């Protein structure tokens, strides 16, 4: 053991207040008392410009939380499964519910919405439970974006649907439809694991300020996270499953196809071909590659909403960074963005993992006082309930702020100088996935690489790891757990999963 490390070890206990390594040393976690009598599963959240927080719950109550005196007031109610919100002003809130995008307005100033205006409902519903609707988010030009999940073969469709029915698929409409005494189990294997038989399920839609709507991108499965990053990229997270080897993070471009084929039947000019009968290699070529992957079980199983860190809410190095929620595990995820020849790709890092945060981290909002509110849900899947308020205490922690892919490794920028003596025994694991109709993919072609060749900049802030050539379409996992800073702090978030879409030249 080298002398410095021995010193750190033996004085570790004494110095623990100075050299903290628990999230609790940097953040406070406070459970907010949710309103009495309300199922506290949170579907949507939004910050109001006056410091309050709007929260939509599972049964459709939209309530406003006043942190000053810890009170709740009812703004609206009766919504069905609200899963997204955009606060236009304290008396005007857009909410995405199952059947439509709705603008709730308090027209008479009594603090309660009295107008529920349908902004967009021109999409299909089969009544299948898995047809969730997400969004809206708004771009600089004022366009709104919503994204529509596909149905699950856990259930058939209802007798009455809304919108157009697609006849494309192995099962006829009658076979797809519930009926008394019908054993759906005999049909479900032929519907596709997740299916899109009503119009625009699996599509991301763009709604212009004049009300016109265009189908913008396709290929979504269960896209329970949509948001713009600080650079104006439209990000969507989706859930592991059929055609999803593990949960992906996508950077959306107009006309893009994002991998789940069911939605393709609603493409303009689609000629009746069953996407499930197409060559997988052809679909693979059509799809826009994910900009990041959350490895199932290790990082996240059900990633949720992306949100941008405002100035002052987190250490300076995280300002403008995107963080993402996760329902299944006790963690959030930081998105370290990188660009190679104009291609956006990311390193994903666990954040607040195994802290008092807990599970079910569904919706995120930063209020004007820089608090991060995390609303939880489960909807009978894995998750949680209630709201946790997280506040940074202003102390810098030792972490990776930036990652840059190199032709033969990675350059990492740290928030504090790295102790050169801790730079040893670093490892990288990498693997790829198989794109297929099956639910999830095992890791393919796994390899562990020992990183012997490293270079630390003279200021100690930049560490270059020579791993050998990076591999395109592989998820590279850097294992940095035992790095510590010059002043002895442990690394907060010691793993980075970097998806190499493009290898730098």
């Amino acid at each position, binding site marked *: 053991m080298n002398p410095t490390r021995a010193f750190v070890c033996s004085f570790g206990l004494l110095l623990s207040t100075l050299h903290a390594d628990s999230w609790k040393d940097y953040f406070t976690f406070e459970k907010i008392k949710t309103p009495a009598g309300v*199922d506290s599963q949170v579907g949507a959240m939004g910050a109001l410009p006056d410091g309050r927080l709007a929260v939509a719950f599972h049964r459709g109550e939209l309530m406003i939380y006043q942190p000053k005196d810890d009170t709740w007031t009812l703004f609206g109610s009766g919504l*069905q499964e609200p899963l997204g919100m955009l606060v236009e002003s304290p008396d005007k809130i857009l909410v995405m519910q199952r059947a*439509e995008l709705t603008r709730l307005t308090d027209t008479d100033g009594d603090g309660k919405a009295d107008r*529920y205006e349908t902004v967009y409902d021109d999409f299909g519903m089969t*009544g299948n439970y898995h047809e969730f609707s997400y969004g809206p988010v708004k771009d600089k030009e004022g366009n709104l974006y919503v994204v529509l999940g596909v149905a*699950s073969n*856990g259930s058939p469709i*209802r007798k009455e649907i809304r919108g157009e029915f697609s006849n494309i698929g192995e099962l006829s409409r009658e076979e797809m439809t519930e009926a008394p005494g019908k054993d759906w189990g005999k049909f479900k294997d032929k519907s596709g694991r997740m299916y899109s038989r009503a119009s625009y399920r699996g599509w991301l839609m763009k709604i212009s300020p004049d009300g016109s709507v265009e189908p913008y991108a396709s290929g979504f499965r269960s896209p329970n996270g949509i948001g713009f990053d600080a650079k104006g990229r439209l990000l969507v997270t989706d859930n592991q499953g059929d055609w999803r080897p593990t949960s992906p993070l996508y950077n959306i471009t107009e006309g893009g196809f994002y991998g789940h084929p069911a939605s393709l039947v609603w493409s303009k000019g689609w000629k009746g071909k069953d996407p499930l009968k197409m060559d997988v290699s052809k679909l693979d070529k059509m799809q826009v590659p994910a900009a990041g992957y959350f490895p199932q079980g290790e990082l996240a199983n059900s990633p949720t909403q992306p949100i941008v860190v405002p100035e002052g809410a987190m250490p300076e190095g995280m300002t403008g960074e995107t963080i993402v929620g996760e329902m299944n595990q006790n963690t959030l995820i930081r998105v370290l963005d990188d660009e190679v020849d104009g291609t956006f790709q990311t390193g994903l890092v666990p954040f607040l993992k195994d802290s008092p945060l807990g599970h079910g981290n569904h919706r995120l909002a930063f209020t004007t006082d820089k608090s991060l509110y995390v609303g939880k849900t*489960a909807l*009978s899947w894995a998750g949680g309930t209630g709201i946790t308020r997280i506040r940074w205490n202003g102390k810098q922690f030792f972490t990776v702020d930036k990652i840059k892919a190199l032709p033969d490794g990675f350059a990492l920028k740290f928030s504090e100088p790295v102790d050169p003596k801790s730079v040893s025994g670093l490892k990288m694991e990498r693997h790829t996935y198989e794109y297929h109709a099956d639910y999830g993919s095992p890791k393919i072609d796994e390899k562990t690489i020992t990183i012997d060749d490293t270079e630390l900049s003279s200021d100690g802030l930049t560490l270059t790891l020579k791993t050998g050539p990076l591999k395109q379409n592989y998820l590279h996992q850097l294992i940095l757990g035992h790095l510590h800073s010059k002043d002895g702090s442990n690394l907060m978030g010691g793993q980075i999963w970097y998806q190499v879409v493009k290898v730098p030249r």
Partner: protein
Amino acid sequence: MKFHAFICISLGIAASQARAASEGEVLFKQNCSACHALDQQVVGPSLVEIRSIYLGKPDDFLKWCLAPGKKRPGTIDMPSMAHIPEAGLRQIHAYIMATADGVKEKKSASGDPFASSPTQNERPTVQRIFMPNSGPAAIAVALDSMTSLCWDAGSCRLRYAWTGGFIDGWPYWHANGSEQAKIIGTVRYTEEESPFGSMDGAKFKGYELKGGLPKFYYKLGSTMIGESFTALDGGKGFKRHFELSSPPSSGMKLKLSDDPKVSIESDHGRIEGKTLILTAAEAADFTLTIQFQ
């Protein structure tokens, strides 16, 4: 000697099982713990129950994990665990068998814990939820504590009215919407078609609330229609008020339901058989009274 060998082998087996179980614990936490708790059903069955099914049957356990079926109505289907290698699934099996050994199942609560909460019992009230005998964009409305109706925002029309109570949303709310709400009470009136005839091309525009009661707006051709409801006292029926922005100058003929369980009157125009005849002026603002028989 034999005895010793037996102990050695047993201990060896026990040790290897313990090793498998501890490796299984890591995999279990990563892949299973979110849905399976030790001693009570969460999303899926408890480890206690899984143990009772798969004790000594690792192969059956494996088969299920790779291609899960549906056993329990009203619960979520388990996704395939094919991404975990066989050895890992066997370790998870060993872990579950070891962990649940000697543990007893806890009883879980049943029924809607919010059934008597004030927000759920506000009257009148509007609640969007999947409803029986309606399109999927259904809206349930409690006009008062006795009379309720189902309005379909997809086809822009009233579907049915009932008396008794409102809805039991628990079948929907306790999970993720795989079940519809149940109506509480008796259906007293069903409308097979809108009074305006075919609603193809009708556009739902939303609703306004006044005293908690909704006024629905929808556009049919170039006409904006406002439709609102009030209950008659004592669950005897309801009034239905229509406002049309620009009724055709030639007037309108509306089709009234032939549901024999109600009588229908209009405060404007005249009724011939099951047809309500209105002049343009009358069609701009009229009220139907639907009385349950």
